[in-house]
């Protein structure tokens, strides 16, 4: 374990140390940007190795075993991972649940769950969406009824990412049907092997089965697993740490996809084609300006000035740019776009159809573009 306070290092020294560590320790087989996401044992291994080397949980306060890094240094970590072409990591436990437990959990909950998240022993999944509660999440219907020392849970969750390899789930349930929909929701924790809880993977358009349905049939969840007060789950779920919302608008995926596009334009001899050049120029400017905006918004956030409207805008801009670039990737490979597994060539295993497909849901998850536009328009134009 590294004992030195990383916050005391200059940004350059900090960056160099992290870069060195990645170069010496990051598994080569994971270095497939865009399409690779660590799952299950790979994700456990990543958390374990960063934990042991003193890099785990950069945004967590030190009292919980995190690094307590400044936002500026957290962003440096992300930049270097992009530069090293690292795979994506979800870390639902460390990123989504931990802030909730820190703010609303009991001491017993924190000491039981946080260390296992740090060490990569527990992977968590997020049970929020339901078949009839997507963008309108607050209308969720999975019910939890108090029964002695437990809640009896019945209902269904869907689009739960990586539920199949998760050890535990944090789940939003309806505990009160008599009040305004946001006011009757509670936040519960459950083990995935609880009797009555079953997981069914869903095959998606990128040939992955990471998204799952989860069925709850008379699942007994101990009452001590309630986080925050009863019926306060909607407020509880909003706790976030550090750079999370800024990361949703980061130019990482569009920038990586644009590199793929440029490589294809070169290898396919299209650099002189006027139409291809015009489209590439437009996409390049989209990525360039998004990066300029993102870095200036991050600077403002580091100073403590957070502009909510622009965060929603950046999420829309980044994901739509990613989609536009992925479409142009298929456009420049022409008839090969119809192949099941079109790749760039022997030197790169990137499956181009998969890039295109992975870009599809980015405008749906983490707040669909239409919902983001509603929220931003309320901020800019007053509520309608």
């Amino acid at each position, binding site marked *: 374990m590294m004992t030195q306070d990383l916050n005391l290092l200059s940004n350059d020294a900090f960056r160099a140390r992290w870069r060195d560590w990645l170069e010496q320790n990051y598994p080569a087989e994971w270095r497939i940007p865009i399409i690779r996401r660590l799952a299950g044992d790979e994700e456990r291994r990543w958390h374990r190795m960063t934990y042991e080397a003193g890099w785990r949980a950069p945004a967590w306060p030190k009292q919980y075993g995190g690094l307590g890094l400044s936002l500026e240094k957290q962003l440096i970590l992300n930049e270097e991972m992009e530069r090293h072409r690292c795979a994506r990591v979800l870390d639902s436990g460390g990123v989504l649940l931990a802030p909730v437990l820190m703010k609303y959990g009991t001491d017993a909950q924190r000491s039981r769950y946080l260390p296992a998240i740090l060490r990569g022993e527990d992977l968590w999944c997020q049970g929020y969406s339901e078949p009839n509660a997507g963008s309108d999440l607050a209308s969720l219907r999975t019910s939890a009824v108090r029964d002695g020392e437990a809640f009896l849970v019945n209902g269904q969750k869907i689009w739960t990412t990586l539920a199949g390899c998760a050890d535990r789930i944090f789940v939003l349930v309806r505990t009160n049907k008599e009040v305004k929909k946001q006011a009757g929701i509670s936040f519960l924790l459950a083990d995935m092997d609880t009797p009555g809880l079953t997981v069914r993977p869903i095959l998606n358009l990128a040939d992955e089965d990471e998204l799952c349905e989860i069925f709850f049939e008379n699942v007994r969840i101990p009452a001590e697993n309630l986080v925050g007060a009863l019926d306060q789950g909607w407020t509880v779920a909003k706790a976030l740490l550090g750079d999370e919302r800024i990361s949703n608008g980061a130019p990482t995926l569009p920038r990586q996809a644009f590199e793929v596009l*440029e490589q294809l334009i070169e290898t396919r001899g299209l650099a002189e084609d006027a139409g291809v*050049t*015009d489209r*590439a*120029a*437009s996409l*390049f*400017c989209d990525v*360039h*300006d*998004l990066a*300029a*905006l993102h*870095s*200036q*918004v991050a*600077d*403002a*956030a580091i*100073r403590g*000035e957070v*502009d909510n*409207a*622009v965060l929603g*805008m950046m999420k*829309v*801009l980044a994901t739509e740019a990613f989609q536009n670039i992925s479409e142009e990737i298929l456009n420049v490979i022409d008839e090969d776009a119809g192949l099941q597994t079109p790749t760039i060539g022997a030197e790169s295993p990137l499956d181009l159809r998969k890039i295109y497909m992975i870009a599809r849901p980015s405008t749906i998850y983490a707040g669909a573009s*239409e919902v983001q*536009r*509603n929220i*931003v*328009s309320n901020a*800019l*134009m*007053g509520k*309608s």
Partner: protein
Amino acid sequence: MGWRTDDELQQMLRDSAIAFLGDAGGPGHFRAVRASETGFDADTWRRMAELGWTGMLLPEKLGGAELGLSAALPLAEELGRALAPEPFVASAIMAGTLLARGAGPVAAALATGLAQGHQSVTLAWQERRGGVGIPAFGTRLAAGRLQGAKVHVPAWHPGSALLVAAQGDDGPVVVAVDPSASGVTLVVARATDGTLTADVVFDDVRVTADAVIVEGDAARVALEHAIARGTVALSAQLEGLAKALWHETLAYMQQRVQFGGALSEFQALRHRMVDLYSQIELAAASWRKAAHCVEEGKLWGPAVPAAKARCSQAAQEMGRWAIQYHGAFGYTDEADVGLYVHCALRWSSWLGGASAHRRAALMAHRGGKGA
């Protein structure tokens, strides 16, 4: 403001610009200048000089404020917001950059006149219409005689002083030329922002040695900086214009009631307004990044062309939807929206349009990767 921040000096200049332009700028002023014969309001220019704007980049010993580009840009943004037709970019920024690097009594006299607002100065450098970047000059200065032609000389008016970029015996050269001198022919056209532009032919025009402002490698560098700074400042003006038009359009949408509700309540229109605002945010971030690069001497990366492309595009798109959301009223000359649209046409096409700059940005990116 949100994420956008000014330093103390920038904030001070911006505040003074907002206060001054509240009376001296805006649609009424734009209409007056557009209706004038010269397309130039000497009185407003003189008052801008009193505020220190025209001599912003000039040395203190010549009456200037000796500030950098970053101080000038909040002014450019506010001038754009106020639709100001004054030649701030053409004269204070572009000609100012050359005069600040110039030597000799003629350069000093022009600089002092500019700082005091007695005159505006304009630079004739283009030899073809449109495009991006500095061409090899066909206009030649040899043995004290100037021969050639320039197009699209901005901010022309009878009282403006003229600088001309030409090819000399030892590289590029910038000279001051008296527009009334023998051998100078001007063809003047009205631009859509109400100002005049001129195409100028020089036929064996006599240029004395003291009229040389800067020459050789120094002239090349000075021209590169003048055009890069002008491009960034014009980008900031365009973004300011687009932002003002966005707010103007929202104000109209909030009071225009159809089908029982204000236009600003309809979701399809609200989403479009969010997208337009997003483009303006990108534009604001892009010119700020470009300004940073230019101040660090990095003129040739993608930042400057990307900024001009984004700001031009944002202003033109905003103009299109501003007319649409004002309905038929937006198509009248009486509505101010048309003034913004006309102004945006001029500013977005001057110093290179959006698509040429997008290509330039991509080429700079591709070129930079190998270096």
